[in-house]
């Protein structure tokens, strides 16, 4: 089945809504409109307005209500129209949902999924380009995923919906219709907590996730004659699949971490720190990072391009590390 990334998301929700009557989708304009990006096109018609719910513009309520439903055994998918608006529901995520089970001494689970379009490269400006995953990776009790392929988008979303813990699911809007992939017709899941080896290699490990995965894989292919690159797509950012990461680093001895989120305080810092501590003896060069510059994502094309990582910057960073 040849599907786009966003169609994969739609299918995941459709299948899970059909499979389990406790699954709900709630968000602004997810019903009649089928979502601002059509991620839920047709789902309200098919599954009913009770279960695919057009919500008021109240992100905090959306998440909070999701927790109330979860306590009743429901499994709500909570859409942020753009992931940038997750800041408006921040308290409910980090203090209400992430602590629910813990502060009840294990009496309950909290099976909610918060999802929405993240990422830049589409001239979205300050509030339609954000990659806020690092905030949530600092919050115990949450799980965080960020698929880069249509296959993973579907499989991880289905896993997230079935997961008993709160999962923050970052989809990348740049990929929505730009990638098309063959995925299985039959049902499948992608496990949370497991990275994907996108390409094997012996010289350098590039660790990445989300939109840059594609540019990194391309770079790895294009540069094959120069350097043998191993590409790891983290997919899950909390918890990170350290076994896979460290296994690769121990093999190659050189690491570049690439993400679209800003450098300072980004997920790459944690990954680099962990490698620097645990693989110190095996490193043949500094753990390098390539990420967005430490500034908001600006609107005008040249500035946006200046700020975000791109193919050229990735190639350059790999060369620099290879030459080390």
């Amino acid at each position, binding site marked *: 089945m040849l599907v786009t990334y966003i169609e994969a998301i739609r299918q995941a929700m459709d299948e899970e809504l059909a499979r389990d009557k406790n699954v709900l989708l709630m968000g602004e304009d997810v019903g009649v409109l089928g979502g601002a990006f059509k991620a839920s096109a047709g789902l309200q018609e098919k599954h009913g307005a009770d279960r695919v719910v057009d919500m*008021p513009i109240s992100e905090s309520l959306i998440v909070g209500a999701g927790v*109330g439903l979860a306590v009743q055994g429901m499994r709500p998918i909570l859409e942020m129209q753009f992931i940038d608006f997750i800041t408006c529901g921040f308290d409910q995520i980090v203090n209400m949902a992430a602590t629910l089970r813990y502060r009840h001494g*294990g009496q309950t689970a909290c099976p909610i999924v918060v999802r929405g379009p993240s990422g830049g490269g589409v001239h979205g400006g300050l509030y339609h380009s954000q990659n806020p995953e690092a905030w949530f990776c600092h919050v115990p009790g949450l799980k965080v995923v960020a698929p880069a392929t249509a296959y993973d988008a579907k499989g991880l979303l289905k896993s997230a919906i079935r997961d008993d813990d709160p999962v923050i699911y970052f989809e990348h809007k740049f990929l929505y219709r730009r990638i098309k992939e063959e995925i299985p017709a039959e049902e499948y899941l992608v496990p949370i907590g497991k990275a994907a080896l996108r390409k094997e290699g012996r010289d350098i490990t590039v660790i990445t996730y989300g939109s840059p995965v594609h540019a990194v894989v391309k770079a790895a292919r294009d540069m094959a004659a120069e350097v043998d690159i191993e590409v790891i797509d983290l997919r899950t950012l909390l918890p*990170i699949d350290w076994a896979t990461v460290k296994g690769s680093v121990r093999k190659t001895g050189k690491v570049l971490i690439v993400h679209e989120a800003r450098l300072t305080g980004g997920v790459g810092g944690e990954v680099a720190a962990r490698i620097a501590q645990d693989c110190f003896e095996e490193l043949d060069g500094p753990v390098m990072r390539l990420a967005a510059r430490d500034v908001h994502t600006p609107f005008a094309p040249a500035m946006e391009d200046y700020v975000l990582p791109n193919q050229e910057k990735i190639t350059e960073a790999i060369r620099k590390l290879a030459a080390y």
Partner: protein
Amino acid sequence: MTEQKDRELYRWLRLIREFEDRISALDKQGKLMGGVYSGKGQEAVTVGFCHDLRWDDWVFPLHRDLGAFLVKGADPKRLMAQIFGKRDGFAKGKDSYLHGGDLANGIFGATSMLAATLPVAAGMAYKFKIRKEDRVAIAFFGEGASSRGDAHEAMNFAGVHKLPVIFVCENNFYAYSTPNELQFGVDDVADRADGYGFKGEVVSGNDLHAVMKTAGKAIARARKGEGPTLIECKTYRYHGHSEHDRADYRSEEEVITWESRDPIFLWENYLKQRKYDIAAIVKETTEEVTRIVEEAVAFAEASPFPEGPEAMEDLYAMPIDTEAR
């Protein structure tokens, strides 16, 4: 009401009062850690709203709603252990006071963030509605918490879907030191209900009869699918915001005035008017609640504190070991 119920209600008022008093005493003795937020003086609100609920209804208490725990069915022993931060508390010592709920009895544990429970209550009520269950969710909050965005978002959503949720505002005239004039520009928080499309009512929160009447109607409406109600109970906390607050920001006269409307005093008066054997009732009840609270304290004191490594338990329902592979 039957004599039995009249006495039962009295017993709850007294049990809560005894519990609150004992907690304050324990705090003074340095036996408790963390904040203690006495609801002494506000007992009629929680008794009035919780007494006639069914076990499968839900309450969302805030920091001063210890009474809601008791009346809704929490084991006094475990509640006391919770307050001590012991392993037998609802939170197994992970948090204290009223942050751990007793979910089996339909009691939700709040975060500290005031009004954050209101969206949760509304969401749960949405489930009751779509599953056609005639259950209700009761969300308690102070008048100070009414200023938070979450209160608004929750009430607005409840209004859209006419959800079986009741918003109970306990207006005790102060949010910590902040008087109502600095909290909002109206006399009655209940006025807000109009702006959400449901009924708002003001009631004397110290008058158990009045609370029960208003609560009963609202609960019946909610069960019948007639939507939410916002009920503002005017009441008073005798103690400071927490036990270490001397509450200099209010006058002695004000405190005395409110003490003269004490909910237990009022109810005893009613029992007298009904010509029950008040002396016997008081004696019996005093013995019973003293015993219950004694037992609770003994249990809590005997309950072990959790060991350090237990801190890592109960974080995830489906843990993933990503180091091992």
